[in-house]
C-alpha cells in the first residue's frame, strides 16, 4: 500500500512563450514531496523550458513569458511581489554541463552561503563539509578543498555542482540532463546519489534517456511538442502507458 504523498509543487494551466512561439501549452502537474520526478520527451518538446520555469530561471531570458499558476508549498512562485532570488534559494538547479566557478572547491560550495550572508567561519565550514558528504565527495576531496574546482574530472565537477546546490538547503532540486555529458561510470554514481538525496529533497530531473528515467524516478512526465501527454507512476508509464503517443515514444517509434 502506498503512503499518501504530499504535493510539493503544483502547476496549473502553464503556458510559456518565446516571443511569438508557444513553447509550453497548458501544463497541469503535481510534483510530490521527497520523490524523483522525471521529465522525458524528444528534443525540443519543451521539457527544459518547463523545468526552468519552476525556479524562475526563464526570467533571465528577455523574450520569454511565463503564464499560469506555479506553486511551491501553496505559494505562487510568480506572484506579485515574490522575489525570484528567494524562489531560487528554495528551488535549486543543476545544469547539463557542469559549471563550477573558477575558484577553489571550498569556495564553490560556500558561494551560496556567502551570498546569503552567512558570516560565521565555522558554520560555513561545517555546511561545506555536510554538503560535500551529501554529494558523496567528502572522502575524495577533503584534503584538496583549496585546490581549483577546474582541476576535477567531469563527474566530480557535476557532483560539486550538486554539493553547491545542497549547501543552501533547498526544498527542491531541479536537474537539467545532469549526466548527458558524463561517461557511464560517472552517470551511475550520480544516479546512486539521487536515490540517497530523495530521502531529504524533492528532485525533478529532465532526461533524454528513458532508461535513466526508468532507473531513478518515481513519477514520469512525458512531454511532446510543448504539451504534457501523460504523467504518472514510472512503472505504470513504462509497462502500461495509457496514451498512444507515450507508447510510441517509449518503444522507440520516434524520438
Amino acid at each position: 500500500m502506498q503512503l499518501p504523498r504530499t504535493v510539493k509543487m503544483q502547476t496549473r494551466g502553464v503556458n510559456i512563450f518565446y516571443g511569438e512561439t508557444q513553447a509550453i501549452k497548458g501544463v497541469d502537474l503535481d510534483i510530490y514531496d521527497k520523490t524523483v520526478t522525471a521529465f522525458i520527451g524528444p528534443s525540443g518538446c519543451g521539457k527544459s523550458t518547463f523545468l526552468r520555469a519552476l525556479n524562475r530561471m526563464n526570467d533571465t531570458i528577455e523574450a520569454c513569458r511565463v503564464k499560469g499558476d506555479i506553486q511551491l508549498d501553496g505559494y505562487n512562485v510568480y506572484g506579485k511581489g515574490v522575489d525570484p532570488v528567494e524562489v531560487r534559494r528554495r528551488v535549486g538547479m543543476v545544469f547539463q554541463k557542469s559549471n563550477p566557478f573558477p575558484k577553489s572547491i571550498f569556495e564553490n560550495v560556500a558561494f551560496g552561503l556567502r551570498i546569503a550572508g552567512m558570516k560565521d567561519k565555522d558554520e560555513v565550514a561545517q555546511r561545506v563539509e555536510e554538503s560535500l558528504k551529501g554529494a558523496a565527495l567528502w572522502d575524495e576531496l577533503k584534503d584538496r578543498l583549496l585546490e581549483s574546482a577546474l582541476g576535477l574530472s567531469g563527474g566530480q565537477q557535476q557532483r560539486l555542482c550538486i554539493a553547491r546546490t545542497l549547501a543552501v538547503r533547498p526544498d527542491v532540486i531541479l536537474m537539467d540532463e545532469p549526466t548527458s555529458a558524463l561517461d557511464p561510470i560517472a552517470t551511475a554514481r550520480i544516479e546512486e546519489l539521487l536515490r540517497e538525496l530523495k530521502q531529504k529533497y524533492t528532485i525533478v530531473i529532465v532526461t533524454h534517456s528513458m532508461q535513466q528515467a526508468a532507473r531513478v524516478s518515481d513519477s514520469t512526465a512525458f512531454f511532446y511538442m510543448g504539451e504534457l501527454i501523460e504523467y504518472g507512476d514510472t512503472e505504470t508509464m513504462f509497462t502500461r502507458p495509457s496514451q498512444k503517443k507515450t507508447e510510441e515514444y517509449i518503444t522507440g517509434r520516434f524520438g
Partner: protein
Amino acid sequence: MNYTRKDWLLAGLSGTALLVILALLVILMQQIVVNGAPVVSGEFLTGSPSADMTGGGIWPAIYGTVFMTLLMTLAGVPVGVATAIYLTEYASSRSRLAQAVRIAVNNLAGVPSIVFGLFGLGFFVLFIGSSMDQLLYGDTSTPVWGKPSILWASLTLAVLTLPVVIVTTEEALRQVPRELREASLALGATKFQTVYKVVLPNAVGGILTGVILAVSRGAGEVAPIIFVGAANFLPYLPTDLRDMFMHLGYHVYALATQSPNVDAAKPTLFGTVLVLLTLTFTLNFLAIVIRSRTRATRA
C-alpha cells in the same frame, strides 16, 4: 603538413609583410637609440630643463606625465568600466539608452585628438572653469580655475581614452561564459552579487589589459594637451590641480618647434623620445604579461 603552391604564396606574402613591419620598427628604434642613448643619464632623468630650451634634464616632464596619467586614470577608468558593466549586464537588448551610448562611444573613438584639445579648452577651461570662478569668486578677470591646468588636461584625456576602456571592458565581460552567471543566479544570488562576485573577478584580466592600453595611449597623446595645460617650460613642479605641467610628449614637440636653437636641442630631443618610448613599451609589455597570466587561470 603538405604545403600547396598557394600555401607557399600566402606564407611568402604574409612573411614579407612581417619583415617590412619589423624593418620599420628597427629603423625607427635604431635612430632613436643611437642618438638618444648617450644623452640619457642619471642627471638627465632627474634634472631640470635649461631655460633656453636646448638641454638640461627632463625630470619635470617625467613627473608631469606621471601625475597627469594618474589623474586621467582616476577620472576615466571607473566611469568607463561602470558604463561597460551597465551596457553588458543591465541594459536590455532593445534599450534605446544603450543604443545611444554605443553610438556615442563609437563616434567618440573616431574623433581626432586635436579636436579633443579644442573640446578641452572650450568645455573644461572656458566653460566649467570660468563658471567655477564666477561661482566661487564672482569675477573672471583673473582666472583661477578658468585657465589651462593639469586638472583640465587630465579630464580631457580621460574623455579621449573612455571609448577604449568601455570597449575592452565590454569585450572582457562578454568573454565570461553565460553558464557561470546562470550557476550563480540558480543559487539565489541577485544580479548585483553575480556581477560583483562572479563576472567581474573573471573579467579582471581583460579589463586590466584594456585599462593599461588606454593609459598607455593617453600618456602619449600630445595634441589634446597643447592648449589645455602643457607648458614649454616651468620653473616649478605642479603640486596643485590648477598648476600647469610639463609633459614628455609635449616636450618633444616644444624642443622641435619652439626652441630658439633646434640643432642644439637635438640630443635632448632624442633622449626625451627614448624615455617616452620606453615608458609606452613598458606599459604595453605589462599589458601583455597580465593578459597571458590571467588567461592561464581562467576556465
